[in-house]
């Protein structure tokens, strides 16, 4: 495309049906320790 460059292959919509195994790492949201937020994680699958 000339005006738009998509930089990722998003998976959010497909994981509505496939996720939830729960094997991923906990992700503290506070500012005091392993505060990675879920956005910084990858899926363990």
């Amino acid at each position: 495309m000339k005006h738009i460059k998509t930089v990722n292959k998003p998976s959010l919509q497909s994981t509505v049906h496939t996720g939830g195994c729960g094997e991923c790492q906990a992700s503290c949201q506070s500012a005091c320790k392993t505060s990675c937020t879920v956005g910084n994680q990858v899926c363990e699958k």
Partner: protein
Amino acid sequence: MKDKIHKFEQNGMYILLDINSGAVHVIDKMIYDMMDTFDGSNDEAVVQALAGQYPEAELREALGELHALMAARELFAPDIDVPPTFKQKGLVKSLCLMIAQDCNLRCKYCFGDGGSYGQQRAVMTPEIGRRAVDFLIEASGPRKHCEMDFFGGEPLMNMKTVKAVTEYVHQREKETGKTFKLTLTTNGMLLNDENIQWLNENNFALVLSLDGRKEVHDATRPDVGGHGTYDRVVKNFHKCIDSRKGGDYDYRGVYTYIRGTYTRNNMDFTKDVLAMNDEGFDILSMEPVVMKDSPLGFTEADLPRISAEYDRLTEAYLQRHRAGRGFYFFHFNMDLSNGPCVAKRLSGCGAGHEYFAVAENGDLYPCHQFVGREKYKLGNIFDGVQNQELPRYFRESHVLNKEKCRNCWARFFCSGGCHANADLFHRDIRQPYEVGCEIQKKRLECAILVQACLALEKSK
């Protein structure tokens, strides 16, 4: 349709995020302007609105590109509701052990009252720690991966229990087939050769606390006698990280990072991040302090300056990366293609339903920050969770149930922020801490921009 996208301009780039698909598009200024009007079905209105600014042929060409994105479900993707994969009840998978509710530092911003959490200074016994391991094994049910975070205060002040618990973890791993991931957060004062070797041999992930420049660190993280600690901990951190290079526990494979806190006294925190990198550390994190009614804490008035500082940090981060001496900054590291599933994005940190903290006496709380907040006590590791209502309330306090989060563009990245901070400011875990939200959103924009830049540069 505006609530389905987020667009921003930073460092000369225009970014369009499609919230419900997670697609990130780098766009030109014309598309950026078109998105003020475009709703997917009003091409003529877009052409009319921008006819004086851009050639009509260009506008129509760009509209074609936007419709192609819609067809690929990467623009205006449908809203996401609570999926069936998000089970009503969470399985506990992670415990934070308050190994020592005591500390050998007196950091100016400590949320744990110098380690005691408003209670008597005390350390966890090996018996309590071992019982916590059994509690986690039972509570995690069929889940294979379990996590234990050794926290405090300063956990290395109680190596006896750290070692006893770890030994028991290894025994129970063999008996149950579960895999434990162990993490320890330390201020570095007691990180001597013997402890380093033992932590390496036991495959501990480490979080090492350092606040950047020497003068900043010494001012915020003094020892009990009020003396600066920078020189002492940096020496130990070097020894520790050097010992983890190569071999079975290369520090890039095991989670080992230097994390700092910035306060109102160092809103020029880019200098602190770069100072840590210049010191030779390359896996870094730097986060805003959260304090209420304190001169070190932030208010809304500080946000423009903090925002500008993140722009500077982004620029510096990319500059070093392009010069071949890049470093890893925790909050800019984001996998835009293989991020967590929707269920995880709703669970967030899992505090109160997938993640508990165990106080030194065995009492259970939703997370380490709630330790000592009595109305949040859940039970104890001997009798289990007695307050059944709280875990359910925490599990249901996800972004789609919080008024301020439901329509926020960042909802699937931040998962609603920290419950403990919300409680601190509003006495309500469903009312997010606004200043934290604004900082988080800015930091996310920077992370998305960084990932977009790196992806484009890689594709060239």
